[in-house]
């Protein structure tokens, strides 16, 4: 599988540890979390002002996505037909590599030397920047976060806030270097200035690029339209200024009607940033027509499978409802302890812990479905009610069925379960165990280093009781 070779998900454990110990990263994450959570909470609470109710809207959004997925092929056909009618070209890509080939082909056809890009996670799945650069096309990320990440030579660590792992000092250092000026001391009050500085640089790129590459938040079947939801306005530049506009997006992004899109928009920005609506919502249909002020001469949709079709009709189909709002990671205690890069592939957080194994191979991401406390903070905020913990659980079961768990873990579990099935033996063993624990404990009744579960005492004491089990004491009392 092509995605597997780029995935670093097998190193989750090591990366997680490193990131927990990285004070700069921790500072950045610590700052971001309350912002995300607070803003979403306000946005959801404000639904009441419009006489709307979260759970009802959720049901509606979940329903739209389920209906779409039930007849995905039909909606894709309709989309293709309508898009072609309005002057666009529609191409299909089986995987990331094919996306790269198609985009490079188009670039060659139109003599493209520079491509501006607005945020697209699919372009990450396809490693498009790398592929373009190799083909002699300079890719320029124009979303501010993506721009920062590109300057740093990194990948996004969050699906809507790609540079959330960076502190302002780090960003200042990157800007100073790229923009050829000395480093200054910056505070959050300077963010508008720094943004303006990046805009100045990007403006020249907008004007000189021959191709714009964007994702799409939704594809609207009835009109053959790509919907783009952004906050910076860069999306508009990318999709209207260059003569060629390429939309790269997943086949599951389709919704049947404009009305469905409007319903989903009630929850997408609120779940993502807490906004009632994002600063820009663009509906892009076809090419520049006579009399139009702007717009591309050529519009190409590249609709990508890359593992999605396999999920249709599988126990994981619910995952395809995802509208990429990021709420699950914003509310994830694990994500905010280590940042997105530890997850090793394009998608981080709870949705990544489900998608990465499904798209890159379960055997290539063994830790991810286990990297969860099962708290379900993600599942309870997801606007399309994806049962993320349940899907992670299914992946755990599949690992066991396919004999992918370490033998030591399997053996320990089997031995323990066998003992737990024999009450007399269990009582006998637990009586011995608590005496042993009590013997290990210090005067305060705590174990500081516990050889049998060193993970526990690495960061915590283990408080133990009197050296008697409940059942033993209860029996004695009777």
């Amino acid at each position, binding site marked *: 599988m092509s995605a597997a070779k780029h995935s670093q998900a097998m190193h989750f454990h090591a990366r997680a540890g490193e990131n927990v110990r990285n004070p700069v990263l921790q500072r950045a994450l610590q700052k971001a979390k309350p912002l995300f959570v607070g803003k979403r909470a306000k946005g959801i609470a404000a639904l009441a002002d419009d006489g709307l109710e979260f759970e009802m809207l959720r049901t509606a959004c979940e329903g739209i996505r389920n209906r779409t997925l039930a007849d995905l092929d039909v909606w894709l056909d309709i989309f293709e037909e309508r898009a072609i009618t309005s002057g666009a070209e529609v191409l299909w890509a089986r995987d990331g590599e094919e996306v790269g080939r198609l985009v490079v082909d188009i670039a060659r056809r139109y003599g493209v030397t520079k491509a501006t890009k607005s945020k697209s996670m699919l372009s990450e799945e396809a490693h498009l920047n790398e592929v373009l650069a190799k083909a002699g096309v300079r890719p320029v990320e124009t979303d501010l976060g993506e721009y920062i990440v590109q300057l740093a030579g990194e990948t996004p660590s969050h699906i809507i806030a790609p540079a959330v792992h960076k502190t302002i000092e780090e960003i200042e250092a990157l800007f100073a270097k790229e923009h050829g000026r000395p480093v200054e001391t910056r505070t959050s009050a300077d963010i508008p200035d720094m943004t303006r500085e990046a805009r100045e640089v990007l403006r020249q790129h907008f004007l000189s690029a021959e191709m714009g590459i964007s994702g799409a938040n939704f594809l609207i079947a009835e009109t053959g339209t790509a919907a783009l939801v952004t906050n910076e306005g860069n999306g508009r530049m990318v999709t209207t200024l260059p003569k060629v506009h390429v939309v790269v997006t997943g086949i599951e992004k389709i919704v049947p009607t404009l009305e469905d899109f409007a319903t989903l928009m009630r929850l997408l920005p609120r779940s993502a940033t807490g906004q009632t609506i994002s600063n820009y919502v663009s509906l892009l249909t076809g090419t520049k027509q006579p009399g139009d002020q702007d717009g591309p001469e050529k519009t190409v949709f590249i609709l990508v499978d890359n593992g999605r079709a396999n999920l249709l009709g599988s126990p994981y189909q619910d995952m395809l409802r995802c509208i990429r709002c990021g709420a699950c990671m914003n509310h994830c205690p694990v994500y905010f302890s280590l940042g997105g890069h530890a997850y090793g592939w394009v998608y981080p957080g709870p949705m990544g812990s489900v998608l990465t194994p499904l798209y890159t191979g379960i055997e290539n991401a063994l830790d991810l479905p286990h990297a969860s406390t099962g708290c379900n903070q993600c599942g309870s905020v997801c606007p399309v009610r994806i049962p993320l913990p349940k899907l992670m659980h299914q992946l755990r079961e599949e690992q066991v069925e396919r004999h992918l768990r370490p033998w030591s873990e399997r053996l320990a579990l089997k031995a323990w379960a066998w003992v737990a099935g024999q009450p007399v033996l269990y009582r006998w063993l637990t009586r011995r165990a608590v005496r042993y624990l009590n013997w290990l404990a210090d005067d305060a009744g705590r174990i500081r280093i516990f050889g049998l579960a060193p993970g526990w005492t690495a*960061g915590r004491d283990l408080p133990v009781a009197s050296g008697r089990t409940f059942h033993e004491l209860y029996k004695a009392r009777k």
Partner: protein
Amino acid sequence: MRVALYVTCLVDLMRPSVGFASLRLLEAAGCEVIVPEAQTCCGQPAWSAGDRDLASDLARKAIAELEGYDYVVIPSGSCTDQICNVYPQLLSGDSLWGGRAQRLAERTYELTTFLADVLKVSTVPSEFDGSVTYHDSCKGLRTLGIKQQPRELLLRTPGAAIKEMADCEECCGFGGAFSVNFSEVSTRIVDRKCDSIAEAAADAVVGGDLGCLLNIEGRLRRRGDETTRVLHIAEVLAGGEES
């Protein structure tokens, strides 16, 4: 009313006083309490690890020993979730056990829910001198909807003053095997919980799941906090009588 008390494996091993406190609370509320003798573990560790077969074996065992009572009460949201939500789903394809799992689930309650919603107790047998801050454990809160019940009971406890901590609904980072397998991440998460607890500056942090409480207590002590008491809700409500 015959009530089976399922103490949980963690209470049996790590803090028997929670089992005795639960017993006293139920008896004070007028229940005839039986502690079924053969109880061991509900099987959640096997289920969490992804092993359906082992989890089903232990589910059948628990069903057989718990189904003969009017109610089953458990001082843990997480084990209650296992019996109420996981068992029926785990055994749904089993013509014999599916129905039995379902019937058991309907009669099984987490301790504070049973006291507040089923028995509707108006008094609790203890007094507590000091302030408490309540940590909402994830399973209880998000799958069983336990939120008001423990607080109602605390309000009825003479002397106990509730001081809510910030983000009381945030996960403490325990997660069973997660706390050992991803120890550093787990510690990072519980650190944030400890910060909230420190800010609340209550005399005791109280919760309904021993796993979370051991995690919180273990981290608080490691950080050098020797004074904040860490108590199970049953211990607060039933008073400090030693087992």
